């Protein structure tokens, strides 16, 4: 655990290198959302959550994280590896045959750190609510975190869950929306507008926070603020503004790098922009 912003930035830089190298190595995967959510996941695992890399599925006495938008598995795997859940060398097996690092995260191969399969969208908020209810039943005062894509909010199940959590005062839950405004077919405003997202969550009874998702200091600050808002009878949601592809100039701000791998030349251009801080896997 560190609150040192420069330390967190160093980790984030290495994680971004891992992401582009992983998707390049298997010529598939989702770099855009992974790069955009890097600062959030690094902050969560290295500055915010109490968690034990000697992984235990139930996680009693620990903060738990559920990734609902499972396609950003590259950033999740890299962060888990750097946090000590498994050897960084295993990142080289991403999406390859006989790997624990499946295209989308799963518990099925026994990869430490993963508590639910995700990839088919819209399911993770319900799961996070269930885990939060279990913590309450167990008298466990730690928190449950989840991450969702903004396009993912088009799934109906999200709003079933969004209705349930405030009604049942699930106030040990912090959901974060990766609010990058992009999805596979284009900007969310073109595909299916999310409208007044803050107003929607507020109308459902959530405590809504907004933050800048690619400024490490601000990411840590909004997560700390969210924690201070727990235990007050409402679930908390952070609408975290991120840039898809953040950190690699030619991938930024467009939906085009949602699920495309860089070629050799693009890889070199990307890596030149990302400092190797902790050693490549």
């Amino acid at each position, binding site marked *: 655990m560190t609150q040192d912003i420069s330390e967190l930035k160093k980790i984030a830089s290495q994680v971004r290198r891992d992401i582009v190298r992983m998707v390049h190595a298997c010529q598939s995967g989702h770099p855009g959302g992974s790069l955009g959510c890097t600062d959030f996941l690094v902050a969560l695992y290295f500055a915010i959550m109490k968690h034990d890399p000697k992984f235990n*599925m*139930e*996680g*009693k006495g620990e903060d*738990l994280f*559920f990734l609902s938008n499972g396609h950003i598995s590259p950033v999740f795997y890299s962060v888990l590896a750097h946090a000590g859940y498994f050897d960084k060398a295993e990142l080289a097996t991403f999406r390859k045959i006989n790997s624990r690092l499946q295209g989308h995260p*799963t*518990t*099925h191969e026994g990869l430490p750190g993963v*508590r*639910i*399969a*995700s*990839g*088919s969208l*819209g*399911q*993770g*908020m*319900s*799961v*996070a*609510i*269930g*885990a*939060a*209810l*279990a*913590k309450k*039943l*167990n008298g466990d005062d730690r928190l449950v975190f989840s991450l969702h894509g903004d396009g993912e909010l088009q799934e*109906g*199940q999200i709003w*079933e*869950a969004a*209705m*349930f959590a405030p009604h*049942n005062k699930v106030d040990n839950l912090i959901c974060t929306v990766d609010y990058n405004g992009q999805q596979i077919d284009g900007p969310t405003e073109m595909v299916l507008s999310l409208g007044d997202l803050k107003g929607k969550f507020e109308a459902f009874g959530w405590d809504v926070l907004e933050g800048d998702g690619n400024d490490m200091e601000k990411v840590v600050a909004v997560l700390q603020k969210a924690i201070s808002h727990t235990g007050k009878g409402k679930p908390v949601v952070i609408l975290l503004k991120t840039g898809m592809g953040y950190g690699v100039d030619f991938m930024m701000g467009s939906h085009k790098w949602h699920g495309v791998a860089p070629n050799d030349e693009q890889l070199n251009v990307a890596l030149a922009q990302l400092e190797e801080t902790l050693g490549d896997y």
Partner: protein
Amino acid sequence: MKKYTYTDKKDTRSGFGDGLLEAGKRNPEVVALCADLIGSLKMNDFIKAFPERFFQVGIAEANMIGIAAGLATSGKIPFTGTFANFSTGRVYDQIRQSVAYSDKNVKICASHAGLTLGEDGATHQILEDIGMMKMLPGMTVINPCDYNQTKAATIAIAEHHGPVYLRFGRPVVPIFTDPDQKFEIGKAWMVNEGADVSIFATGHLVWEAIQAGEILAEEGIDAEIINIHTIKPLDAEAVLKSVAKTGCVVTAEEHNRLGGLGDSIAQLLAVNNPTPQEFVAVNDSFGESGTPAQLMTKYGLDAVNIVKAVKKVIARKKQNA
């Protein structure tokens, strides 16, 4: 033919409700969820006994399955309750990804299965649920035959680690199994030993098979009747042993003939001991409104149709001989 009688009739869903209460008493980790059908699922006694361990999710079945998966992640043993249609077809992908593929210890408990919910009609009469659930890797599929067996099965699945689909029904039906039975998942129950034909029946059709066995006995046909309450994992040993003796098979279920118990038995036999088989099941159609008895007759799911199927399959066996 061994004599089966009954003094009382009850719905199998009441067996679930009473079993859930008992499971809740035995293990504090047992929790329950319902999607606005508490009365229909007979969950009131559990809720009264353990209000803090019950979650009303409203008419939001997908969310219910996800919450159950989350509860299971943290060591709880969640039982979800709604109608069979809304327990399976409506939430197939949630069960597939968040429960089955994620190896979660969730018990999906489904009432009003098959035709016998009656007048509500085909929107509520799912006949495809066994097929969908048995196709999921790691899923156990159970369809008990009366109140006592459903209660025992409910208690047993709480003690079994892994996802389970438990299917039961709405109508009151005879209680003819032992009230003190120990339910063994995956272990077929020998209802009646016989030599001429093997009748493998599940759910409400077990009682019909017993009625059929009595009619057949009067005509000199000695039917072996086996209750396959666990469709997956199938008790292959019991099936093969019986078929080796009788040489022909009738399967009976309140389900589409595609994807049900009959399919499972046929696949087992095709590989191990190809055998003439007849299917008493719904012939690839939807149901409709009517009383349970009218529907079971119209769709051919009664003792009379089991007798017909037995005679047909015995004739086929003789032809082959």
